[in-house]
């Protein structure tokens, strides 16, 4: 998958299996990734687990789990909020004060998109299902996000992917016709469709030009454009362009000055005319 770290690094990683994105005193987020197409090292996310840790008056522990075709609007214990009730709320129906409690889940699109707000942490966490895979985005205060960053252990959001797990997107985007990158399937460029109802259906990874044309329809820029093209060229599945679009939209909505951090670049990485 594609990773944007708290430090603003954009990376594309293999990271098959279970990996921690965040793991500090307040919050733990882990993902499970599975291979997208046979023979390729590229993976996508099929499960996300979020633990908002307890340990204070403000934060009873809450665990959230999402999997493909199961993006619930509640924590695993069935609750939709947690934390002390606001003063004077005794006797009121819970709907009257849910928006005032420290931890709560907001369903944005049933079964497809939820937001988890942890007001006591100043945190917003977004879980989506786009196509057959999940996406995650988080906004955190920097001092919460980087708390414990110096200690041992993996936190992809903090430290990025290990070097051995990284995929050079530039090589893939520029490598069409110049040999095969390890992220590409080994047996030609025909892959199983992730959206097809027929499990045996095979689709062809898009050409560079076709991928660029589709990704441009979503007004993607900079690394989001690159990631979109990478996904379409490796899988041929157009739903990945929507995933990139949603990720870019979350980026813009979560960070007030996000637009200033991205280059206004609508050509893929390294392509002629990229300036």
């Amino acid at each position: 998958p594609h990773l944007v770290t708290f430090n603003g690094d954009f990376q594309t990683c293999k990271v098959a299996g279970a990996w921690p994105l965040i793991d500090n005193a307040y919050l733990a987020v882990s993902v499970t990734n599975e291979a997208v197409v046979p023979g390729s090292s590229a993976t996508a996310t099929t499960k996300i687990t979020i633990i908002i840790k307890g340990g204070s008056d403000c934060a009873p522990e809450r665990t959230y789990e999402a999997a493909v075709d199961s993006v619930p609007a509640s924590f695993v214990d069935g609750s939709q909020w947690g934390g002390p009730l606001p003063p004077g709320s005794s006797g009121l129906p819970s709907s009257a004060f849910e928006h005032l409690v420290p931890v709560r889940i907001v369903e944005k699109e049933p079964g497809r998109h939820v937001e988890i707000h942890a007001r006591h942490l100043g945190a917003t966490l977004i879980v989506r299902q786009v196509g057959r895979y999940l996406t995650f985005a988080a906004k955190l205060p920097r001092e919460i996000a980087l708390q414990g960053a110096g200690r041992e252990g993996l936190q992809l959001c903090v430290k990025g992917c290990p070097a051995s797990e990284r995929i050079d997107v530039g090589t893939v985007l520029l490598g069409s016709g110049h040999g095969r990158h390890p992220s590409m399937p080994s047996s030609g460029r025909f892959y199983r469709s992730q959206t097809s109802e027929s499990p045996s259906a095979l689709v062809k990874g898009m050409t560079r030009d076709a991928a660029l044309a589709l990704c441009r329809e979503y007004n993607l820029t900079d690394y989001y454009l690159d990631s979109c093209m990478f996904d379409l060229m490796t899988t041929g599945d157009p739903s990945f362009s929507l995933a990139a679009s949603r990720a870019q939209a979350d980026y813009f909505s979560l960070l007030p000055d996000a637009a200033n951090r991205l280059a206004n670049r609508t050509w893929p990485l390294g392509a002629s005319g990229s300036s």
Partner: protein
Amino acid sequence: CKVDSCTRQFQQAAMASGVRRGSAAFCVILRQYSDCLRSTARSCRGHLAYHSTITLVQNWNGDSNCSYVGGASGAGGAPAIFNKDRPRNHDHHSPKVDDSPSCTYQGRPEVTHCSFYGD
């Protein structure tokens, strides 16, 4: 002594939200019950119903494993960044009913972002 008033508030909150005993939501309501009882402690000296109720709430706390009910803030090693605006005169022995922490993050406003998507 307003022990009956606290009990009524607790019963109303429990019925309104339909929580099960032992759930996290029950712990929240129980905590408010406990705070209410403590706020009326001084006027309830020697009041049998008050002391019985205190004991009952403590038992429910234990039975439901409500470790944070009435607990100190910042327990468990988590820094209390979000408790900075907790009232300075907070007294665990006789807090007011509405003397709860704001539970709104009070740290520096600089925010950052992480995202994970695609293949």
